[in-house]
């Protein structure tokens, strides 16, 4: 008998459109001191399992069949009172976002003390001592002082440590951690995972870690259950599942994970996810509408895009007098050049100024110093729309969030046609329609998508619409600002494939911005590393991954998740890093 047994569990959500079965006959078990990973993509039902275990299914969700047993006793059919006594005391939960899982109006101490007193019945003084002790255990320095602070006085990583302390304060037997590191930067993710692993071993707690991230799975779990559409398709020891998966979905999922240690020509195709045509027929630039982008004449032989000592600062306040104003330097003296046809990567943690550079190149922001030179012309010196529009046509952008980058009130046809109409790239209405359908077909959506509205598409499909819109001006230069960080890994793989194909066919020059080093490695020829608005290092991709020069780059690389155990089966490997 295991510590926690989930047997044949089904969770259903009835609605007026029929009953949706989120979890369908799932059986998993956790032993004391063991970490079980539940991995899957969005909508697979992995969080629903966690919520069912802790007894917090959101209405109208209900358990349709099966049992959940803690130490042999059923806990799924208890009444609310009995469930509340178990929750937090014997089974507790760590949530994804440390910003919202702590009460901002109470000190850490009062939140911890309240929970401890409710569950363990200690007096106030003993509870206080225990709170300080817990903070020490989760690695918060000077816990006697820090315990008096409010949540906003902690950084994101420290706050997640507090959340963990809160989850552990009643000595639970089982902890459910739902995406415990997804909201954190990589450097902090590594620390939190190490902490979870240590606490689990020391306290003999059974832990379920729910995540979409193969890196987290590889890092801390002992066993892993792979979920697809509400079912566990494969379960076993982590090394077995990652190294030698049996189920085709697991294999496809692992194949879609970008690796820091090897570069693929293309990601393997995951036919489990969306009905996307594998690869549309290649475009012959000579007779295709998109091929006419070659109507731009190269004006000089230098790099296509050059940033010269580019800076921008944003005012922090709006004082009337210049001397009272304060500024923050978002980008400080950045210079680099991108040659025609190459993919240049920009990498850095949040707030490093990567996205600001994209917005400076596209003229959404005006620089406070330096210049953007495109094909020999200083674009930042141009003021009038008449002079700027030819350059706007040549530089287009793909955004991070596919949910906010499409106007929800416009049909896909009008979204993609807008740039064509604005720049008068087609003669008649019929020609515009034909071109839009062709573009949609080419990004793998099919011409029928034109008549629909954005909300009828999934995140990955929306990103394809965004790409079609960016291509509609027949650009030469494409900026991709975190184009896949909001997407599931298998969908990310397909979007990266699409971008690679388009770049090869259309001979696009690309600026690829990402916080994700493995993704950068797959996509880029050269990479620039940014921190605090400054460019620290520029190097060819292979060189950067094998022998990073700047200490910060070395640190970033050392924090990448370790994927050595992942299978290489069926991968189209281009080259391997030896470092």
């Amino acid at each position, binding site marked *: 008998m295991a510590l926690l047994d989930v047997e044949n569990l089904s969770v259903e959500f009835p609605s007026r459109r029929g009953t949706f079965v989120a979890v369908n006959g799932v059986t998993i078990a956790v032993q004391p001191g063991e970490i079980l990973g539940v991995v899957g993509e969005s909508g697979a039902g992995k969080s629903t399992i966690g919520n069912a275990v802790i007894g917090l299914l959101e209405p109208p969700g209900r358990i349709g069949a099966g049992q959940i047993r803690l130490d042999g006793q059923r806990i799924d059919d208890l009444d609310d009172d009995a469930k509340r006594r178990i929750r937090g005391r014997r089974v507790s939960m760590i949530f994804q976002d440390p910003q919202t899982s702590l009460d901002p109006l109470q000190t850490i101490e009062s939140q911890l003390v309240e929970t401890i007193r409710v569950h363990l019945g200690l007096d106030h003084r003993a509870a206080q001592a225990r709170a300080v002790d817990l903070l020490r255990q989760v690695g918060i320095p000077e816990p006697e002082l820090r315990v008096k602070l409010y949540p906003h006085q902690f950084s994101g990583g420290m706050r997640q440590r507090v959340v963990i302390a809160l989850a552990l304060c009643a000595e639970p037997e089982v902890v459910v951690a739902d995406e415990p590191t997804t909201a954190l930067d990589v450097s902090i993710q590594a620390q939190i995972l190490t902490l979870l692993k240590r606490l689990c071993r020391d306290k003999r707690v059974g832990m379920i870690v729910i995540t979409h991230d193969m890196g987290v799975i590889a890092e801390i779990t002992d066993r892993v259950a792979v979920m697809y559409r509400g079912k566990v398709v494969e379960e076993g020891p982590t090394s077995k599942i990652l190294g030698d998966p049996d189920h085709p979905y697991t294999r496809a999922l692992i194949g879609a994970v970008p690796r820091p240690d090897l570069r693929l020509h293309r990601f393997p195709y995951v036919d489990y996810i969306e009905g996307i045509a594998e690869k549309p027929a290649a475009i012959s630039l000579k007779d295709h509408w998109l091929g006419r982008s070659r109507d731009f004449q190269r004006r000089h032989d230098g790099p296509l895009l050059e940033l010269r000592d580019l800076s921008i600062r944003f005012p922090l306040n709006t004082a009337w007098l210049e001397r009272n104003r304060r500024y923050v330097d978002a980008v400080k003296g950045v210079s680099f050049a991108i040659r025609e046809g190459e993919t240049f990567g920009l990498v850095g943690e949040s707030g490093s100024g990567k996205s600001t550079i994209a917005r400076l190149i596209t003229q959404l922001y005006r620089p406070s110093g330096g210049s953007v030179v495109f094909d020999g012309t200083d674009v930042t010196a141009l003021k009038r729309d008449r002079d700027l529009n030819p350059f706007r046509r040549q530089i287009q952008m793909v955004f991070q*969030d596919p949910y906010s980058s499409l106007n929800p009130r416009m049909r896909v046809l009008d979204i993609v046609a807008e740039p064509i109409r604005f720049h008068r790239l087609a003669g008649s209405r019929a020609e515009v329609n034909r071109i839009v359908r062709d573009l949609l077909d080419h990004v793998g959506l099919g011409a029928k998508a034109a008549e629909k509205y954005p909300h009828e598409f999934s995140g990955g499909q929306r990103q394809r619409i965004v790409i079609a819109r960016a291509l509609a001006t027949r650009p030469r230069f494409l900026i991709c600002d975190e184009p896949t960080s909001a997407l599931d890994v298998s969908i990310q793989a397909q979007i990266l494939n699409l971008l690679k194909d388009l770049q090869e066919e259309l001979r696009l020059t690309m600026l690829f911005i990402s916080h994700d080093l493995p993704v950068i490695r797959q996509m880029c020829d050269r990479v620039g590393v940014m921190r605090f608005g400054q460019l620290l290092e520029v190097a060819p991709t292979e060189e950067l991954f094998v022998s990073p020069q700047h200490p910060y780059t070395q640190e970033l690389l050392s924090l990448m998740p370790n994927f050595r155990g992942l299978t290489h089966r069926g991968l189209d490997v281009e080259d391997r890093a030896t470092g």
Partner: protein
Amino acid sequence: MSFLSGFTDSDLWHSFIRTPTALVSALLTLILIAGALAAPLVAPHNPFDLASLDIMSAHLPPVWMKDGDPAFLLGTDDQGRDVLSAIFYGARISLLVGFASVLLAVLIGVTLGLVSGYLGGRADAAIMRVADVQLSFPAILIALLIDGVARGVLPREAQEHMAVYVLVFAIGISNWVQYARTVRGAAMVESRKEYVQAARIIGIGPVAILWRHILPNVLGPVLVIATINLALAIITEATLSFLGVGVPPTTPSLGTLIRIGNDYLFSGEWWISIFPGVVLVLLVLSVNLLGDWLRDALNPKLR
């Protein structure tokens, strides 16, 4: 047809047919609006036709009381006008003034709100300060002021038939601030979204961005406020007419009817003001309930 089936399948429609309050108030609003629109067809008399009025049939009580005349179901007023017919025609003027002034307020408020929210900076500061100043006066006071000024400016003979336009203008001007503030906030949120940035990268100008991209995405809350403000505008019109600065007694609105009846209330002739009053309450109440339902149904946080 496909649009219609899309609507009947929507959550909004579903919530509508499952909320009895919404159904009843929508039905009541529809009946009142239909009655007002079809006044010449359904009203037994034409209260504006002076030739048909007979001073002998003035001050008649409703039909179920002693001395009641079957020709005048709800009795007559001091000039022998049929109260029921006067209500039909009066509701017409009340609704006309209500809808027109809301439309005017929406036009002004949404335009200023969009400009304010999208451009920001000095334009925003200027528009919002004007709004702040206007908010420090009660709307009815501003309407009274505009009405008074208009009366002073217009020649005497024009006043009678210009009265409705003056009212619409006065009520419209006094209500734009709420729209402007709501739209400004929503436009600020929308203009930071990436689809607006995409349009700017393409090169599309601010007017087209506001019209094509931002406006359709901020209209939801405007619709809710407009519904609730329609009731408010009808009340404001009634108040102004009751105070004697609204429409003249020759073409009475519901408010004018209540004022006329008010003089006879204490001599026992209650029907002249009570019946128009009841209709006014029903109209305002049903429009208000409809607005409340719409606000809740469109707010995902309350579901």
